[in-house]
C-alpha cells in the first residue's frame, strides 16, 4: 500500500494538551480544515484545492422512521441496572449546600439501612436473641424491678422516626438518647463488624456510581455480524448475548430481506458470566468469534459454510477482570487479551498465552483507570496496546526492545485537556495501516507509518463517549464508512472517509479525507414516539426497556444490483436487537426537508400509518406489533424471583389472639353457599355482590342527573365574572356545615369511648384528618370511580375478612381493623397493638398482585383507572440495589 505522496500540512509540537478546549465550539462544522492541491494535470486555470473535511460524499437516507426489532424479546424478565436515584442522596437542602462543589453524594446510610432491614438475622441475629428479654416494645412505662434490666425501645424508635423526618438537614442534632444507645452498642451489637461492613459497602457504592457515570466494561460491544462467505446468499449470522443475566451466547441465522428476520432457532451456549464483549474476525474464510466476560474469555470457530454449527475452541480464565479481547484478522486462532492489572497477552489457540507487557501504570502520564486495550496492526506480529493516555505498538517477538508510540494524548494530536482514549480499533479491512482512535471529544484516524500525527481528526460531538465502532470498507474509489456508537445515550453516528487513489495515471495515494457530513442515526429509544399510545404504566415500562443503554453495534452493506443499502444492528442491555436500514441515494436534487421526527405525536407516525404503496413501512409496523405483544406477554408472566413475601405470625400472636369474635358472619356464610352452589352447577360467579341483580353504580350518571357538575358550575360563574362569590359561598356554607357535622360525631364518639391510650386517640385523629382532607377535594372523590363495587363505603367489610384485599385508596377497613378498640376486644395486649398495626399496615400498603381479571370480566369492569391500578400492581417492582449483599 502506497503512502500518500503529499500530506495535509499541520503543526507538530510535543507536550501536554492545550489548556482551553479547542479552537471553537462548533468544532469543525462548516470548517474544511487544511487544503491540498487537487492533483497534477489541472494547473491550467485556478489551482483547485481539496479540503481535509467537507468533500462531498455519498448520501444515505434512513428507509424508515425508526429502528425496528429484529428478534422477539426474550421471555425472561429484564432487571434494569441501578439508576442514579438508587444510589445518590436525594435532598433539596443537600443539593443547595453542595451546589458549589462538584460530585455527587452517595446515599450510604440508606444502603446500610437496607442491609439491616433486609437481613436482620445476618446483621444481629444471635445478639438479638440473647437480648430479647431486655428490650421492651410496649408503650407503657416500665415498672421498677424490670427497669434495671430492660430498655424501652419505643422511645428510641420514635427518636429514629423523628430523625428520618429531618433527613438531610445538616444541622440535625442527634437525640442524646440515640447517641447514648449507639455509643453503648456499636461495638458488640452487630454480627458483622460495622467498620468492615461500611468500608465494603462504601467501596461498592463508589464503584457502582463510577460505573453509572461511565461503564467501560462494555467497550467494543457485544454484537457481531458474520456476513455470508460468498456474499450471494443473503443469510448472515448474528452473534449476540441474551438471557436474564446476558450469559447466553446465541448464533442466530438472519435473512436479509426488506426487514431482516431470524431463520430457525439459534445455536446457544450458556456461559458462566455476563457477556461483555463479542469480537469477530474472518481469517481464511473462517470466522473466529471471541467472547469476553469479566473473568473468562472464550473463542468459537464458525466454519465458512452457511448452516455449519459454531464450535467452541478454548476458554481462558483470568484472576483480574479482562478489559479487552480482539481477534486477529491475519492468523487463524490468534487473539489478544488485556486485563485490568495492565497485562497484555497474545493468545494463540495452539501455543497458549504469551505475555507481552505488564505494567500497572499508564504509559504516558498518570491516570487512575485500569482499563487496557489491545488490537492487531498491519504486521501480524506487532500488537498495539492502549490505555487511557495513548497507544503503543509492541513487537511480540521482542516486546521489551521493539516498540514505538502510535498515539499520545497530548499536543502532538491536538488533544484537549482531559481528553482520554476511549476505543482504539484497527481499520485493516479498509486500509492495512490505518487505525481508529476515539476519545470522548474526537475521533482520529492514524497511520502506523506516520505515528503520533493523526491523518484525520473530527470532533464527533456525541454526548457520551463512543464505546462501539464498526467499519464498513468501501470498494476502490468509494468512501469507507465508520459507525460510532455510545452506550448510555444510544447515539449512533455515521462517518465517511476516503484515502483513495487520486488518479490512475499517477498511481499515488491521496491523503485521508473526511467526506460528507457525519450523520446521526436513530437510536432504539427514538422508536418510542412512533409506537401506538400505551397505558401510562406500560408506556413507562416500554420507555425503560427501549432506553436501556446500548451494548453493541454491528452493520453490513448490502448490494442488490443498483440498489445499495446499509443495515445497522444495535443491541441494548436488555438484550433487544434493533435494526435500521439506510438507502444509498444517487446524486439527485436535494429532496424537500423530511418530516421532523421529533414533532410527531405518539401513535400518529407514518411507521404505523404506512401507505399501501410502501410495503416496508407496513412490515415494520407489523414487526413492532408482534414485538410489543411478545413483550407484554413477558411482563404478564409473574417473574419467578418476586414471590409473595411471607411472614410467620406464630411468634407474634397466639391463635386465640387472631381468632375473630364469633364464627363466620352471615355474609361469609352466604358467600360459601353461593360458591358451593356454583361449583355444583358447574357455573361461574360473575360478581360477588350479595344481590347480583343490582347493577354497579355508575358514579358519573349520578352527578349528571343532579344537574351540572361543580366544575361546569364553577366555570359558568367564572365566565359570568362572580367566581369569587361562588367560592366564598361554597367554602363558607357547605364545608362549614360538614365540618360541624364531623366535629359533632367525633365528640359523640369520644364520649362513648371514654378514657383511652394516647396512641389510640392519635389513630382516631388520623381518621378525622383523612376525612377532612377527603372533604376538601370534593371533585375527585366524587368522580373517582376506581373502587370495585364490593368495597363501597357503605358496606364495611366483615370483621374476619383479611385486610389484604382492601385497596389503598380506601382507609376505612384498615381503620376499623386497626383501631385500638377492635384490637383490645380481641384480647391483644396493649404493647403489641402498635406492632400489629405496623405489621398490618405493611400489608395494606403493598397488596400482593391481584390476578388479572379474565377478558370477559375485564370488559365488564372497564373502568380506566381501576384497570390501570390493577396492572400497575402487576408491574415488576423496581429492585432496590443492595450493594454486594
Amino acid at each position, binding site marked *: 500500500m502506497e503512502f500518500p505522496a*503529499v500530506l495535509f*500540512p499541520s*503543526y507538530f509540537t510535543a507536550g501536554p494538551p492545550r489548556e482551553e478546549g479547542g479552537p471553537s465550539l462548533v468544532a469543525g462544522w462548516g470548517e474544511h480544515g487544511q487544503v491540498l492541491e487537487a492533483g497534477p494535470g489541472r494547473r491550467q486555470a485556478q489551482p483547485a484545492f481539496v479540503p481535509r473535511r467537507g468533500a462531498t460524499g455519498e448520501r444515505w437516507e434512513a428507509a424508515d422512521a425508526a429502528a425496528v426489532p429484529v428478534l422477539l424479546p426474550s421471555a425472561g424478565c429484564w432487571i434494569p441496572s441501578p439508576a442514579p436515584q438508587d444510589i445518590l442522596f436525594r435532598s433539596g437542602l443537600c443539593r443547595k449546600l453542595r451546589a458549589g462543589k462538584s460530585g455527587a453524594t452517595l446515599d450510604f446510610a440508606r444502603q446500610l439501612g437496607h442491609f439491616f432491614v433486609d437481613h436482620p438475622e445476618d446483621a444481629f441475629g444471635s445478639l438479638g436473641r440473647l437480648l430479647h428479654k431486655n428490650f421492651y416494645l410496649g408503650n407503657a412505662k416500665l415498672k421498677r424491678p424490670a427497669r434495671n434490666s430492660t430498655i424501652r425501645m419505643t422511645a428510641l424508635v420514635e427518636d429514629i422516626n423523628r430523625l428520618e423526618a429531618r433527613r438531610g438537614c445538616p444541622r440535625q442534632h442527634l437525640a442524646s438518647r440515640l447517641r447514648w444507645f449507639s455509643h453503648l452498642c456499636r461495638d458488640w451489637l452487630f454480627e458483622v463488624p460495622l467498620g468492615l461492613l461500611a468500608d465494603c459497602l462504601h467501596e461498592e457504592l463508589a464503584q457502582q456510581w463510577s460505573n453509572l457515570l461511565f461503564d467501560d466494561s462494555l467497550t467494543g460491544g457485544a454484537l457481531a455480524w458474520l456476513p455470508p462467505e460468498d456474499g450471494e446468499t443473503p443469510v448472515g449470522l448474528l452473534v449476540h448475548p441474551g438471557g436474564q443475566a446476558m450469559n447466553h451466547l446465541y448464533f442466530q441465522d438472519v435473512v436479509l430481506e426488506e426487514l431482516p428476520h431470524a431463520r430457525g432457532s439459534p445455536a446457544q451456549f450458556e456461559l458462566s458470566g455476563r457477556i461483555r464483549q463479542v469480537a469477530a474476525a474472518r481469517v*481464511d474464510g473462517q470466522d473466529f468469534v471471541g467472547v469476553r466476560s469479566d473473568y473468562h474469555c472464550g473463542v468459537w470457530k464458525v466454519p465458512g459454510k452457511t448452516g455449519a454449527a459454531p464450535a467452541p475452541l478454548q476458554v481462558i480464565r483470568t484472576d483480574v477482570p479482562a478489559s479487552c479481547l480482539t481477534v486477529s484478522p*491475519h492468523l487463524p486462532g490468534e487473539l489478544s487479551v488485556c486485563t485490568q492489572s495492565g497485562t497484555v497477552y497474545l493468545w494463540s489457540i495452539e501455543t497458549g498465552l504469551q505475555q507481552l507487557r505488564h505494567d500497572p501504570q499508564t504509559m504516558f502520564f498518570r491516570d487512575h483507570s485500569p482499563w487496557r486495550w489491545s488490537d492487531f496492526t*498491519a504486521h*501480524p506480529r506487532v500488537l498495539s496496546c492502549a490505555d487511557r493516555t495513548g497507544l503503543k505498538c509492541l513487537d511480540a517477538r521482542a516486546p521489551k526492545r521493539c516498540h514505538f508510540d502510535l498515539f499520545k494524548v497530548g499536543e502532538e494530536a491536538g488533544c484537549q485537556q482531559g481528553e482520554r482514549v476511549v476505543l482504539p480499533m484497527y481499520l485493516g479491512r479498509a486500509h*492495512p*495501516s490505518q487505525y481508529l482512535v476515539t476519545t470522548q471529544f474526537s475521533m482520529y484516524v492514524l497511520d502506523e507509518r506516520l505515528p*503520533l500525527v493523526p491523518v484525520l481528526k473530527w470532533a464527533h460531538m456525541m454526548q457520551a463517549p463512543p464505546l462501539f465502532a464498526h467499519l464498513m470498507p468501501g470498494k476502490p474509489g468509494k468512501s469507507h464508512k465508520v459507525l460510532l456508537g455510545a452506550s448510555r445515550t444510544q447515539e449512533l453516528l455515521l462517518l465517511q472517509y476516503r484515502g483513495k487513489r487520486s488518479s490512475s495515471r499517477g498511481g499515488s495515494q491521496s491523503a485521508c479525507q473526511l467526506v460528507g457530513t457525519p450523520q446521526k442515526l436513530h437510536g432504539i429509544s427514538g422508536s418510542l414516539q412512533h409506537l401506538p399510545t400505551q397505558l401510562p404504566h406500560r408506556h413507562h415500562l416500554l420507555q425503560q426497556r427501549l432506553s436501556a443503554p446500548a451494548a453493541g453495534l454491528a452493520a453490513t452493506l448490502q448490494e442488490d444490483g443498483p440498489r445499495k443499502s446499509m443495515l445497522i444492528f444495535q443491541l441494548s442491555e436488555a438484550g433487544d436487537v434493533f435494526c435500521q436500514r439506510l438507502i444509498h441515494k444517487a446524486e439527485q436534487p436535494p429532496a424537500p426537508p423530511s418530516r421532523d421526527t421529533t414533532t410527531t405525536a405518539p401513535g400518529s407516525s407514518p411507521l404505523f400509518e404506512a401507505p399501501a404503496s410502501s410495503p416496508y413501512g407496513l412490515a415494520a409496523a407489523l414487526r413492532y406489533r408482534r414485538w410489543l405483544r411478545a413483550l407484554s406477554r413477558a411482563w404478564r408472566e409473574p417473574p419467578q424471583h418476586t414471590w409473595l413475601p411471607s411472614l410467620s405470625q406464630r411468634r407474634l400472636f397466639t391463635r386465640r389472639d387472631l381468632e375473630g369474635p364469633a364464627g363466620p358472619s352471615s355474609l361469609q356464610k352466604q358467600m360459601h353457599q353461593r360458591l358451593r352452589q356454583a361449583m355444583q352447577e358447574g357455573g361461574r360467579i360473575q360478581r360477588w355482590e350479595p344481590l347480583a341483580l343490582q347493577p354497579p353504580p355508575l358514579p358519573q350518571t349520578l352527578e349528571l342527573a343532579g344537574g351540572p357538575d361543580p366544575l361546569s358550575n364553577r366555570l359558568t360563574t367564572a365566565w359570568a365574572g362572580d367566581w369569587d362569590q361562588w367560592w366564598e359561598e361554597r367554602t363558607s356554607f357547605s364545608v362549614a356545615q360538614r365540618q360541624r357535622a364531623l366535629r359533632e360525631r367525633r365528640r359523640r364518639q369520644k364520649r362513648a369511648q371514654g378514657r383511652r391510650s394516647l396512641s389510640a386517640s392519635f389513630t382516631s385523629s388520623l381518621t378525622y384528618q383523612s376525612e377532612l382532607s377527603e372533604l376538601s377535594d370534593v371533585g375527585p372523590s366524587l368522580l373517582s370511580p376506581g373502587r370495585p363495587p364490593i368495597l363501597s363505603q357503605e358496606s364495611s367489610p366483615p370483621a374476619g375478612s383479611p385486610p389484604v384485599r382492601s385497596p389503598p385508596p380506601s382507609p376505612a377497613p384498615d381503620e376499623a381493623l386497626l383501631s385500638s378498640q377492635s384490637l383490645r376486644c380481641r384480647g391483644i395486649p396493649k404493647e403489641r397493638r402498635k406492632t400489629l398495626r405496623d405489621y398490618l399496615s405493611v400489608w395494606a400498603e403493598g397488596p400482593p398482585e391481584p390476578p388479572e381479571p379474565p377478558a370477559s370480566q375485564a370488559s365488564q369492569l372497564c373502568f380506566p383507572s381501576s384497570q390501570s391500578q390493577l396492572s400497575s400492581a402487576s408491574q415488576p417492582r423496581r429492585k432496590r440495589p443492595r450493594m454486594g449483599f
Partner: protein
Amino acid sequence: GEDGFADLAVEQEMHGYFRKAAVNLKEIIKIPGVWDVFVKCYVDLLEFYGDHNEAHQVLNEYAYNSKFPANPNAHVYLYHFLKKQGESKKSLISALKILHDIVPSHELMIDFNTMLQKSKKRKKRQLGLEVIFAALDYAGWKENAKAWSCLARQVKQIVISEKHLDWIKQEWNSRKDWWPDFHFSRYLAKRNWQENKSLSYEKALVAGILLGKDCKYFKYVSHQGCKAQLKRFRMLKKIVTRHNPVNLRICG
C-alpha cells in the same frame, strides 16, 4: 529591444516574488510540522534558480530534524532529489536504509531491494533479502506480485548457488511459526490461483523452497499448474524437488 526590456522587467518582478516566497516558506518550514506541500514548492523554486545546495539542506533538515515527526515523505523527497542529482549509489542506499528503518512497509522498498540485489557486496545483498522479507511481513503486501517475484528471484538464486543459505535460515527462523498460516495456507493457494496465476507461481516457489515439497500451498498450486499444462509450473516442480534437501538445512 523593447521585448527584451519587458522580459527583464517581468523576470525581475518574478525574482522579487520568488524572494518573498522563499523567505516565507523558509520561515514556515522551520516550525516543526508536516509541510509536504511547502517543502515541495520551495525545493522546486530553489531548483529552478539553481540553488541545489540550499535545496539539499532544506530536505536534509526536513528529514533528519528530530523535532519533526517521522514523516516518510521527507525521506522520499530526499531520495528523489538525490536520484535526480545523480548522486552515488551509496548515498541513495543510505537514504533508503533510513526509510527502511522507519517504514519497512514503504513501497520504495522494492526499488531498494533491486538496488541492493545488484550490488556486488555480500552485506548489501543480505540486507536486500532482509528488506524484502520485512516488507512481506505486512498485510498490505500480502498479494503484491512484484514483491513476491523479488523474493522468489533472490531465494532461487541463493538455493541454486547453494551459497549463503544461512541468510535464508536467519530470516526464516523468526517467521517459520507464522508465515505458513499467514501466506501459505490452502485457502490462500486456492484464492491466489483463481485471482492471479503469476503471484501464485512466485509464492509457490518460495513456499516450496522454505517449507519443502509437502507444503500445502506448493502442492495445490503445482498440482493445478500441471493440470492446466503450464510449462512454468512443471519447471517449478522440478526446481523444488531437486533442491528439497536445501529445505532441510534451512529448517534444521
